[in-house]
């Protein structure tokens, strides 16, 4: 058969398209790679991940785990990753709380309140996050007073142009026992609420929920305190003549990044919560009210659980975006994964490996966030009848 006739066959044509496409991608990839290898060899730059084991030799201003410049590049990257996760997780928690409140108040029947919230959301959504980061950073650095005249926000919480100082808890011993006791308490209370719920659905009778839960929460902690040697103290910051001593010091870079990420994400969360609530038919609310539930009860027991189905999938996007946005840290000098990678690129001259590594890390972070949220979504999603 001549090739022309073969091309009339659809299967052959489809196969040909695919082969051409893949071949083109492979050819371009091979061309770029061979260029890169030639360039690297010429500039005498090493390839591979051997650099990870070498001594980093640079200081990182914020270290959640012990780190010295004499540690390896791998450990420096781990510090950067932990910084990324720390700031992004905190921003996610704060923005969810703030955003939910703003989203609900956006629907308030009081026009003044809902307009105020509309302004909050619009002001945050229409100005780039990076600009806000620069702005918050400048506000902290240039407009706040020096440490000597630090402003007392709350008792023990000071702000100044070198950041935020908050009380810290210093554990002398038994930190893990105490932490385990708290976790056990929360788990026990959680299980108790499930039991109460099951019982109520099965028998219609309500068992005491909160009183028992509080006992369950407190008991493990007391037991742990009695049985084990747990000692710690609250380290209150003290404003001295020249500086603040004690407490935990949050640096301006961290505070600016956390504030920027939180506010930006909270505006997105607010819009999602608002549209989620609007998606619930008003009959649901009317039915809840006619059953004698108060406004708050109707919102908490009837509207929000249903709205969650609409809210959770886009919320996942906001969380993933928050992780990705935390990479803007480099602009104001917070040592996150990207900034540490950037330093490594400058020191070693290797660009491909560090960039590939942090891109891979962000992909994994995105996937993990999506997986967790999908699992949660499965819980709140509409349970259809099983056939």
């Amino acid at each position, binding site marked *: 058969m001549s090739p022309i006739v073969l091309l009339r066959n659809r299967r052959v044509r489809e196969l040909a398209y695919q082969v051409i496409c893949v071949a083109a991608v492979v050819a371009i990839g091979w061309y770029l790679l061979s260029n890169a290898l030639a360039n690297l060899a010429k500039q005498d730059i090493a390839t591979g991940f051997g650099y990870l084991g070498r001594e980093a030799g640079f200081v990182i201003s914020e270290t959640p785990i012990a780190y010295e410049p004499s540690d390896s590049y791998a450990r420096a990257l781990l510090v950067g990753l932990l910084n990324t996760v720390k700031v992004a997780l905190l921003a996610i928690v704060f923005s969810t709380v703030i955003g939910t409140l703003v989203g609900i108040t956006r629907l308030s029947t009081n026009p003044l309140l809902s307009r105020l919230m509309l302004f909050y959301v619009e002001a945050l959504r229409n100005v780039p996050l990076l600009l806000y980061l620069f702005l918050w950073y400048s506000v902290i650095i240039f407009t706040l007073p020096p440490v000597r005249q630090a402003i007392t926000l709350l008792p023990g919480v000071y702000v100044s142009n070198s950041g935020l100082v908050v009380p810290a808890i210093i554990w002398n011993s038994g930190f893990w026992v105490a932490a385990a006791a708290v976790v056990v308490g929360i788990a026990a209370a959680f299980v108790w609420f499930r039991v109460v719920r099951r019982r109520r659905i099965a028998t219609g009778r309500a068992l005491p929920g909160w009183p028992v839960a509080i006992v369950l929460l407190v008991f493990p902690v007391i037991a742990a305190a009695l049985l084990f040697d747990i000692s710690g103290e609250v380290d209150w910051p003290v404003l001295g003549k020249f500086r603040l001593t004690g407490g935990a010091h949050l640096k301006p870079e961290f505070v600016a990044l956390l504030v920027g990420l939180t506010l930006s994400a909270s505006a997105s969360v607010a819009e999602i919560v608002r549209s989620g609530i609007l998606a619930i038919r*008003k009959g649901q609310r009317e039915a809840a009210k006619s059953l004698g539930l108060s406004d708050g009860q109707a919102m908490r027991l009837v509207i929000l659980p249903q709205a969650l189905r609409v809210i959770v999938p886009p919320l996942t996007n906001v969380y993933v975006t928050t992780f990705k946005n935390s990479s803007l840290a480099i602009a104001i000098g917070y040592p996150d994964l990207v900034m540490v990678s950037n330093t490594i690129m400058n020191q070693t001259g290797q660009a491909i490996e560090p*960039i590939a590594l942090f891109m891979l890390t962000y992909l994994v972070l995105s996937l993990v966030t999506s997986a967790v949220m999908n699992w949660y979504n499965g819980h709140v999603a509409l349970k259809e009848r099983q056939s």
Partner: protein
Amino acid sequence: MSEQSTMVSNELASPDRPGGGLRGYFGTVGNSAVTLVCLAVFLLVAKAAISWLLVNAVFTGTPEDCKVASGACWPYLADKLRYMLFGIYPFDEQWRPLTATLLFIAAMAVSGIPRLWGRPLIAGWIVLLPLLFLLMAGGVFGLTSVPTSQWGGLPLSFMLTFVGLVLALPLGILLALARLSNLPAIRILAITFIELVRGVPLISILFMASVMLPLFMPEGVTIDKLLRAQVAIILFAAAYIAEIVRAGLQALPRGQTEAAQALGLHYWQYTFLVIIPQALKTVIPPLVSLFIGFFQDTTLVTIVGLLDFLNTVRTALRDPNWQGIAVLEGYLFAAVVYFVFSAMMGAYSRFLEKRFRVGHD
């Protein structure tokens, strides 16, 4: 969307408070308290803003005057305005970026009128864009040549956004088609590209373009720094556009494809004559939203050292005459500029949404 929300909140509220007017503010004791608290907050903010912007501000004078005053420093804005808007573009030639920006904004405004959508408009843009480019770059018609390394400020931000999205659109459409293709190899390539790009931050792609791309080029070939960032933005935008277009394609009833096939059209014919025009029409509002997002995201080129609007504002702070004196004025000015453009586009997006909703009912 705001129209919809006020409508619904009024509906929600109607059983509790018939009528309207001041009842919304002072219906119940609780509501009155809320109103008073809101008013107090509003007045406090307004008072602070007025005293900073006007009462305590310095309108004319030297950096020394600003240093002692507690309010805004307007002379700083006046002094640095041209640098913030046009960066290091040669001072005497700055009428060129100004003209280009004004022409561009005017063309955008005209293009926003749905009645004018059609071939002549596209032809107009195809003529206009090279003209704007020539106006900026010079070298012809007796204009002095200005290399792209001296471009900056607001025109650069507009260019990165607009050129980025216009060139990303065809690429995004192809990616969306590839993702829905029934040819497995093509589908897998498209999914890999789209998910890879969407899974990583824009900054990492800009890093790739600015640090890695030169390594991948054959020896002796150097690509302009601005072009590299522009390519990064195009690739990034294409992945996001692909997902939006895919939603539009999937929302289209199968009957359209089947009818076109029954008429004897082959793949490329029915895709570009029947499917894509309908799919694109439904996704115009999310595309406009994406445009707003990208207008803000182009600020990230600041991090790889391009002098976009945000970066000119930032570097204007380093002027030794003004150092440490006007630290917030520049950012607040930039925030207002971004806010105005984004809010206008947002309002336009809502207008389109309403228009298309009416069209479908």
